[in-house]
């Protein structure tokens, strides 16, 4: 699956990096870095990250 974070909304709170550390991480500057292409087996963790995002900035892009 393909992940998209809306950087206009993202506030770098880092909740996604807690929920799904394999996909999202905060760099030493405190700015979000993330994998865009992620194995489908990580879907539950990515969904937790989407839910936990305080500003709801994380989306899964439909590839169909």
């Amino acid at each position, binding site marked *: 699956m393909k992940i998209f974070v809306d950087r206009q909304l993202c*506030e*770098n*709170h*880092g*909740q996604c990096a*807690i*929920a799904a550390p394999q996909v999202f991480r*905060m760099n*030493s500057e*405190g700015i979000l870095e993330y994998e865009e292409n992620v194995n489908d087996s990580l879907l539950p963790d990515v969904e*937790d990250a989407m*839910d*936990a995002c*305080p*500003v*709801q900035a994380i989306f899964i892009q439909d590839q169909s």
Partner: protein
Amino acid sequence: MTTPTAEAPYLDISDPTFAMQSEALRNAREQSWYARTNYGIAVLRYEEVSKLLKDPRLKQGSAQWPEHHGVHSGLFYDWWTKNLLVLEGEDHHRIRRLLNPAFSPRLLKSLVPKFQALANELVDEFIDKGECEFVSDFAEPYATRVLTIMLGIPEAEWPTIARLASTIGLALGVTLKQDLHKVEAALDELYEYAEALIADRQASPGDDFVSRLVLANRDGDSLSDAELRNALVLLIFGGMDTTRNQLGLAMQSFMRNPEQWELLAERPELGSKAVEEVMRINPTVTWVTREAIEDFTYEGLEVSKETTVHLFTQSAGTDPRAFPEPEMNLLGEHAPHYGFGGGVHHCLGHFVARSDMSEALPLLARRLRNPRINGADEWMPDSGNTGPIRLPISFIKGE
């Protein structure tokens, strides 16, 4: 020690008359991005609050609270030092991962009709009188009964929950040590509630909030009974006073901006915008506290390890650098506020608070027209978590 320059403004934040929404604070914010205080530094401007709130060189600043007030052991000490608010690193992240899914905004949607019914029921009680004491007639029962709905406690028991939550709230006062026996008695009673709820849902889980916490599992890891209990107590402790206070502050802000109240009555879809605007200009959590975990320099200021850093939310939310027109405006496009804190310690229950307040406010606006102060109001000090103790209002009966 931190070496702030002597030219930086000074604020006595322990003074009971210290006011966030004051000329002195606005002047300080114009003079400098930070102020010296009697207890660490205060960050006053939006951009700096936004950055420092999420800065990895700062941790949540309340872990030492009991010890700073002479409490080194006991029931309260044990709860405080193990609660999510003050945990850091993987200890924090593990608990947060297990708690977060139960607070999902998708799952909370099913509670909205219950929030609306509750708000209407409370207003029905006093609307014909054309007046009410807003805190005890609406804000407190609403905030507490929302929690009983979430937790599946009989709603009739809300006064007990409100009393216990308020008593435990004394722990955040500087008189913690002398109030300790009351705080611990309340904590003990709340533990019994929490343990009964957990045992009940473990025996017969449903699809309610507590069952979701009981069943929460991540890679084979789940919350222990003690962790579940601590989390439920944190939810009651953190969810009741804050929502009650914020609703009272909302009423205050709208009474100062009557045209915005009219607008909200006509356009209930602005309910969530109303919550954001009120929390930006008049938040109950007036500051968020952090502590430096290492020496560092920020914007020319040397911050040494263990310095307390207060991030002023209301000051940031009305900073003219970020908000050229800082007045309340439900139709304005404003940057996010930090009334729920931010970073890894961002308020866990914010979707609940946003959801219940965004239902309550438009309903109140429609039913209580032209609200005005009606008698003596009484307020908590501006430091920490503020709000009205008494807010008598009169209004013209709407629907």
